[in-house]
């Protein structure tokens, strides 16, 4: 172990996150490796290790002969201070080697608020921040993940952006990079070639010009780069890699259990949901294979909990069969199943009985909006009756806690919609009174609201975010309307959502803001402990950027979105159609009921297997 590290560790919180050595961490012989990949997650170990995508790609890369992929996480503030004081650069967990010495430095980024952390990690590694300042083939700085569907605010800092699912394109990228190093290509030559690999976007090969009013005038691809880069997907989930033998952390992480991925994509089409659009189309893994992976992963890791993971687990057609198939094993090994993403409209007694037997703590539903009108606007397609029926079932089955998630500030929202949330909570309370077999234990109903952030590649990408004053007024309105003591109301801190709204639909002019805010001290801004709204305001002012231009402005149909060179497979025409339908309160059926022609079917050769 590095001597500097050994001296630092006694002084930092949770030192086990900085040492590696976990069961199943991959150690390779440096002499047999020609490509070193530092796979970075711009957040703490506990968060990064809970990310299934990272585990998949770690496995995929390490299965390649000659490639050694290692993990890198952001140090917590105390550790960063110690590292900087000791002059210790950012290092990878498996080998302890400095990140700057790696061939490829790849980030997985799911959340805009992690952008400052990426800059901080590059700096801690001693890698020049700007793509233009890096002259050689190594280290190559790459990023992928959901937040990269609009990579523009990070465009100056990244060499390549990988769009969509990385199982195949990562391998292609590594092979190309290996060839470039072997044959001594220049960096420019390599980037030009990389831009021709489907799913790889090279920001430096696009020239962006702006109108006087600040909107984008034109995006011009240079040197043969494609006008539009379409995301990559895995077409057959039964043939795609699943990390059965995966790292078991020696310290507690957020998702400390087997994550069994049932399917990708979502049939629903909620209009606010970026994941629902960008992960299309739906592709399921067969129940037999899921059951086998679940058993093997439990046997290897020793975990006693399996989470059945997807965007909407109760939409997995063979869900009951899968639960039944796993039951004998779960009984014998005392393994619990947890289903995190349930919909209120198809939650059944059957599913409930298969959930965490014995410990019936709480269930979570997300009606998202308080009235049917607004739920139709967002295409949530859950009715109050369905929600109440599900709660009734749960209470009758012995549950005594329900969490309800909503959003405030959705397009067209009125005070009536806000007050409707309180009404929903009161009716859920009533359902408990009717259904609970034992009322002595009481009930806990938790209402949580977040502030709606319009995201790129969704039907609401043209919509403004409501102002902060208005959001706070609506929170107050709801707070005063919730009078029952058994209902707890939590609301999301507002300042983070403002910045998120700016970055989510930002353009390249935000690169300077990000650099400025990072230089002023922004690092782990996804954490309340580190986030400072004032610091962001100062950075906007210093760069002459008006955050309201990005967050609170309604876009026109003919405006060129800064992320127009990126396609998730869903067409902009479809998103606009959905937007127009939403304003009329018209719902769109799910993909199983009818194909609505979003365009994502072209990614799987014409017909989705829903």
């Amino acid at each position: 172990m590095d001597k500097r590290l050994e001296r630092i560790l006694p002084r930092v919180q949770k030192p086990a996150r900085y040492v590696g050595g976990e069961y199943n961490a991959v150690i390779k012989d440096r002499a047999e490796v020609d490509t070193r990949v530092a796979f970075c997650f711009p957040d703490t170990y506990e968060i990064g290790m809970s990310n299934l995508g990272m585990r998949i790609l770690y496995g995929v890369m390490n299965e390649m002969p000659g490639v050694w992929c290692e993990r890198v996480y952001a140090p917590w503030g105390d550790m960063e201070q110690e590292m900087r004081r000791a002059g210790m650069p950012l290092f990878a967990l498996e080998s302890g080697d400095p990140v700057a010495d790696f061939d490829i430095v790849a980030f997985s980024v799911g959340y805009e608020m992690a952008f400052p952390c990426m800059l901080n990690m590059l700096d801690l590694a001693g890698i020049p921040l700007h793509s233009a300042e890096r002259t050689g083939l190594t280290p190559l700085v790459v990023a992928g993940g959901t937040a990269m569907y609009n990579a523009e605010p990070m465009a100056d800092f990244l060499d390549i952006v990988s769009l969509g699912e990385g199982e195949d394109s990562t391998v292609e990228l590594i092979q190309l990079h290996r060839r470039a190093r072997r044959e001594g290509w220049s960096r420019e030559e390599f980037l030009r070639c990389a831009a021709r690999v489907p799913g790889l976007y090279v920001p430096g090969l696009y020239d962006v010009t702006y109108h006087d009013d600040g909107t984008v005038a034109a995006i011009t691809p240079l040197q043969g780069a494609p006008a539009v880069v379409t995301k990559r997907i895995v077409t057959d989930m039964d043939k795609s890699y699943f990390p059965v033998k995966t790292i078991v952390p020696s310290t507690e992480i957020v998702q400390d259990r087997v994550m069994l991925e049932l399917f990708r994509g979502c049939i629903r089409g909620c209009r606010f949901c970026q994941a629902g659009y960008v992960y299309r189309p739906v592709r399921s893994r067969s129940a037999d294979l899921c059951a086998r992976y679940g058993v093997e992963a439990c046997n290897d890791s020793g975990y006693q909990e399996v989470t059945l993971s997807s965007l909407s687990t109760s939409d997995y057609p063979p869900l009951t069969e899968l639960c039944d198939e796993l039951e004998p094993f779960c009984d014998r090994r005392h393994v619990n199943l947890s289903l995190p993403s349930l919909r209120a409209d198809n939650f059944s007694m059957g599913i409930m009985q298969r959930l965490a037997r014995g410990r019936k703590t709480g269930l979570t539903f997300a009606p998202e909006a308080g009235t049917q009108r607004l739920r139709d606007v967002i295409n949530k397609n859950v009715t109050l009756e369905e929600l109440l029926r599900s709660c009734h079932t749960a209470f009758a089955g012995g549950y005594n806690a329900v969490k309800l998630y909503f959003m405030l500030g959705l397009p067209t929202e009125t005070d009536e919609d806000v007050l409707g949330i309180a009404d929903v909570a009161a009716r859920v309370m009533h359902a408990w009174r009717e259904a609970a077999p034992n009322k002595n234990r009481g009930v806990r109903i938790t209402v949580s609201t977040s502030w709606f952030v319009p995201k790129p590649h969704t039907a609401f990408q043209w919509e403004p975010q409501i102002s902060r004053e208005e959001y706070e007024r609506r929170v107050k309105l709801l707070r005063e309307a919730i009078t029952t003591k058994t209902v707890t109301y939590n609301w999301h801190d507002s300042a983070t959502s403002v910045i998120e709204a700016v970055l989510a639909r930002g353009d390249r002019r935000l690169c300077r803001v990000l650099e400025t805010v990072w230089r002023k001290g922004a690092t782990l801004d996804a954490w309340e402990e580190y986030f400072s709204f004032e610091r962001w305001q100062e950075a906007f002012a210093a760069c002459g950027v008006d955050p309201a231009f990005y967050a609170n402005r309604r876009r026109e149909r003919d405006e060129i979105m800064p992320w127009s060179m990126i396609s998730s497979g869903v067409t902009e025409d479809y998103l606009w159609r959905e937007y127009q339908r939403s304003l009329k309160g018209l719902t769109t059926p799910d993909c199983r009921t009818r194909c609505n022609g979003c365009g994502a079917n072209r990614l799987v050769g014409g017909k989705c297997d829903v």
Partner: protein
Amino acid sequence: MSKLRLLFVKEAQASWISHLDLMRTFQRAFPRTELDIRHSQGYHPHPILSIVLPLPVGQSSDCELLDFEVVQESDGAGIAERLNTGMPRGLRVLDCYPAARPVRELAWLRADLWLEYDGGVPAEAAEKLRELFSSPSLVIQKRTKRKELAEVDIAPMIRAVSLTEEEGVIRADVTVQAQNPGLNPQLLGKAIERYLPELAPDFIRVRRRAVLDADGRDFR
């Protein structure tokens, strides 16, 4: 039902695994043995598993003990090998056997302390330290469980200290009281800081070498 005991090594990266995390790590490894750990009765059953003398985070050890109960009849044969197929680096089970001796018979623990001096070992340091550790009273400040600072005399808890000078390092082979109350050997460094601040080392590395009964024999 059987009561079993594990003897294991905790070193390198694993020395940074906290007590609670270590318990979790073992719990996850036990399914490999095909033995069922006995669980407590009650609303929230938890596995009956206890580490005999939890090692402070950051220290290494050659002689950690973990007691557990299994539903089946077992003498522990083959358990160590199976557990070792699922361990993180730095954790290695050496043996598994019936827990015959009661833990209360564990009296002393022996540890090596490496006192590291980055600028070289100061002149006559070993002699001065030898003298210090033979004094009848060594009062240091220690945090109590209620996080208050208290003055504690650690001299009565030290049974033997032998010092050897090596390159840039003084190695102290110490034997201290193991329980009721136990002494963390690292605290010898606190005594140096207080009484001979000029000899305070830049870093102290600790490795537990043996756990002993009242007669000074290995406790197993």
